[in-house]
């Protein structure tokens, strides 16, 4: 299948369009709320909540025997919240630390969910089919009613974020200060966490409970590298989320036997790797280059000092010979060459028949460097 065909299908094929729209919406919402989660160091809370949602889905189904998206979403939200509450209570009231509380919630709730699912599997009703897609996600099963639910809930969540933008920013940055100026911090905290639960829950059917947390963490972690502004980070994170949502969903719908969740995670992990490496300024490559440049600059100044020290001295002829420098300063050849070049290009010294001679500018720089 070629690209043109896929594009054509995206626009005109009903099923594919539905899948793409649903995944884009969920990616956008989880990207936006994931940014706050990551900044509030709640990445792993997302993991716990998404696992905790599973028994909610199963119970909602058992109680209503319906697979209506709204019912399942409600169940998932409730049990996701219950998990969060458990984590908060246990860490506040006992010596158990947060990591342990999160681990208990994610494994126990999930285990309970699987127990319920295994019971549901044995039931004779027909409507049970497809609940297991909540494990790893199956975008291909998205239907327009799912997309409507996703879009409506997602739009509501995004609207709240938009309206309470500066409040959520302050909440994430400095909650103590926020409380001191009289904001209802607890309630805002609960609200933001609820939005995160919603973002998780609407992604479950597409991405699955096992990997949903990656949709919160990865777009945000990638976006953080490209900017130092919260607004841009959140937009970028939402954009990454939407992009990988569509890419993953379409790929898994087009290629056989490819669960959607893992596919999306691979795409988004790719974006993370690229961002960590190549982001300007913060990226690893940029950091390395900066460090190298600084090292050469520093060495060039050291060289200028060396030249200054020997200027006019009897050994000057030996000490300023380019061939000698390498040995004297114990630099390897290529580094010495780069330093020499930098010394010359930055106007610290001039080359004259195999020797380096300080310029007056170089002399001044060397003096200043020594005085430091």
């Amino acid at each position, binding site marked *: 299948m070629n690209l043109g065909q896929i594009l054509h299908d995206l626009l005109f094929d009903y099923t594919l369009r539905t899948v793409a729209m649903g995944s884009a919406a969920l990616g956008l919402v989880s990207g936006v709320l994931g940014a706050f989660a990551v*900044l509030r*160091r709640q990445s792993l809370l997302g993991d716990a909540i998404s696992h905790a949602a599973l028994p909610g889905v199963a119970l909602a189904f058992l109680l209503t025997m319906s697979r209506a998206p709204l019912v399942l979403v409600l169940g998932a939200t409730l049990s996701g919240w219950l998990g969060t509450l458990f984590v908060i209570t246990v860490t506040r009231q006992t010596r158990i630390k947060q990591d342990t509380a999160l681990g208990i919630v994610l494994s126990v709730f999930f285990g309970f969910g699987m127990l319920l699912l295994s019971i549901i599997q044995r039931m004779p009703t027909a409507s049970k089919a497809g609940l297991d897609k909540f494990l790893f996600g199956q975008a291909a099963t998205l239907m327009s009613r799912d997309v409507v639910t996703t879009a409506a809930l997602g739009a509501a969540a995004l609207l709240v974020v938009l*309206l*309470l*933008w*500066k*409040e959520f*920013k*302050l909440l*994430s*940055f*400095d909650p*103590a*200060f926020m*409380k*001191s*100026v*009289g*904001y209802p911090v607890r309630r805002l905290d609960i609200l933001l966490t609820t939005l995160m639960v919603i973002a998780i829950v609407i992604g479950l059917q597409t991405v699955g409970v096992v990997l949903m947390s990656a949709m919160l963490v990865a777009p945000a972690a990638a976006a*953080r590298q490209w*900017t*130092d*502004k*919260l607004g*841009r*980070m959140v937009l970028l994170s939402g954009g990454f989320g939407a992009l990988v949502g569509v890419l993953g969903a379409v790929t898994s719908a087009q290629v056989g036997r490819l669960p959607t969740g893992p596919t999306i995670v691979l795409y988004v992990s790719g974006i993370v790797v690229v961002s960590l490496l190549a982001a300007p300024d913060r990226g690893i490559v940029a950091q390395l280059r900066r460090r190298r440049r600084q090292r050469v600059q520093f060495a060039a100044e050291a060289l200028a000092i060396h030249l200054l020290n020997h200027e006019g001295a009897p050994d000057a002829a030996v000490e300023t010979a380019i061939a000698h420098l390498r040995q004297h300063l114990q630099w390897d050849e290529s580094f010495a060459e780069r330093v020499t070049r930098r010394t010359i290009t930055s106007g610290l010294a001039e080359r004259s028949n195999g020797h380096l001679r300080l310029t007056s500018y170089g002399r001044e720089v060397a003096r200043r460097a020594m005085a430091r």
Partner: protein
Amino acid sequence: MDRPLALEVRDLTVAYEEKPVLWDVDLEVPEGVLMAIVGPNGAGKSTLIKTVLGLVPSAAGQVRIYGQPYARRRELVGYVPQRGSVDWDFPTNALDVVLMGLYRKIGWIRRPARRERELALESLAKVGMAEYADRQISQLSGGQQQRVFLARALVQDAQVYLMDEPFAGVDATTERAIVALLRELRAAGKTLIVVHHDLQTVSEYFDWLMLLNVRHIASGPVAEVFTADNLRDAYGGRVAFVTPNAGSENGHLSEPQSLLSRGG
């Protein structure tokens, strides 16, 4: 004392969990003083400030700002928290942080407008940080970060400022600059309450002093309160004196500089 009381704390008792950390503390701070709160680590200095701000609930007692409970006087109070309390890698710049001091005034939903930006910039300029407005906050030095927090408090245009160790991790030059700024504020009739750790500079910087160690040891003008006896009370004999006659003459220390900071 004809000046009104900027802050009045009466019989304040505070406990974390079951462990009381402030016992029946009384404090009266008249308007327009520059006051240090001094006491050993764990004395409850931060707790006192947080309780005044309603960040920590009190078990008993009351706090009044200009005669009213804090909740009603909030807009009169500015707060500079301890520096370690936020994530400095947060994607935000100095100007943004200062703007946060105006959020409450701006109100829900509305965004900061040009006017608020100008106020924030002015405030940054006051602490000598105008040129760093666009810097991401992790790219500021410790002292600069402290000044940004200070600017955020300034922009609140409060009457009473509570500051938790604003000099921690700040070099001597910045420290003097901050002190100068605090004095300016005092001259403008503001009241400043500062948790301070360096006994050597207390009498140089401040005109009012509270010694605290779980209970209120003493408070009042520095000259009256900064005595060897009181310090011994507060630090439990852990203060080393180098002047042999310190503590004589009804406990007055003529030269606070002769006092080393806490020993052992």
